[in-house]
């Protein structure tokens, strides 16, 4: 049972380059999320999805795009990388149903991105 898998683990981008952070989960969770983690700032929500074909903005969506064509996959796209996007990115998933208070967020191990 792999849980939430993120690739790559590390990446260095030059300003203006683009890339896609991959996220896949094998728990058949309906909800998926992208967070960024900056030192001393906690986790900030970038985008989330409540099911295939449905996405919505979180607190810090500028500079990012997402898609959700399948239940399993939720890639995050950076179109024009900027130094402010240097961060650790976490994908998470959860099952939100009748017992929602018993369903924790399951996080991947993160992608550390540096934009120079």
């Amino acid at each position: 049972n792999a849980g939430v898998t993120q690739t790559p683990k590390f990446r260095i981008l030059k300003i203006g380059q683009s890339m896609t952070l991959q996220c896949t989960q094998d728990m058949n969770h309906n909800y998926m999320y992208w967070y960024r983690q900056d030192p001393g700032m906690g986790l900030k929500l970038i985008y989330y999805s409540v099911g295939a074909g449905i996405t919505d903005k979180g607190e810090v969506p500028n500079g990012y795009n997402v898609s959700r064509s399948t239940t399993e996959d939720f890639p995050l796209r950076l179109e024009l990388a900027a130094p402010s996007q240097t961060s650790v990115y976490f994908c998470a998933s959860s099952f939100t149903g009748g017992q929602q208070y018993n369903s924790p967020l399951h996080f991947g191990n993160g992608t550390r991105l540096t934009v120079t």
Partner: protein
Amino acid sequence: QQQVKQSPQSLIVQKGGIPIINCAYENTAFDYFPWYQQFPGKGPALLIAIRPDVSEKKEGRFTISFNKSAKQFSLHIMDSQPGDSATYFCAASIGNYGQNFVFGPGTRLSVLP
């Protein structure tokens, strides 16, 4: 009103000590208060959570104390061990929906052997 304050920023205790991490919130609509534990190089993982209808919840060596009137909650780790060394995040949410979570900035705990 959406902020969750967390203190201290870092904490060092001896093995067997009882570290306490405190969080405070403003939004009285929050009804779910989880704590997440994160080891270096890993994603956060749910440690323990509480809802406002109880004042305390214990799971093993971990206890959440909740003070609804003060809008504060705290994590206590009994008989702390070096393996508890990690970063701890409190959060508050309306329902257990990730898009509603407001995370604290985190506390880095070191338990010395």
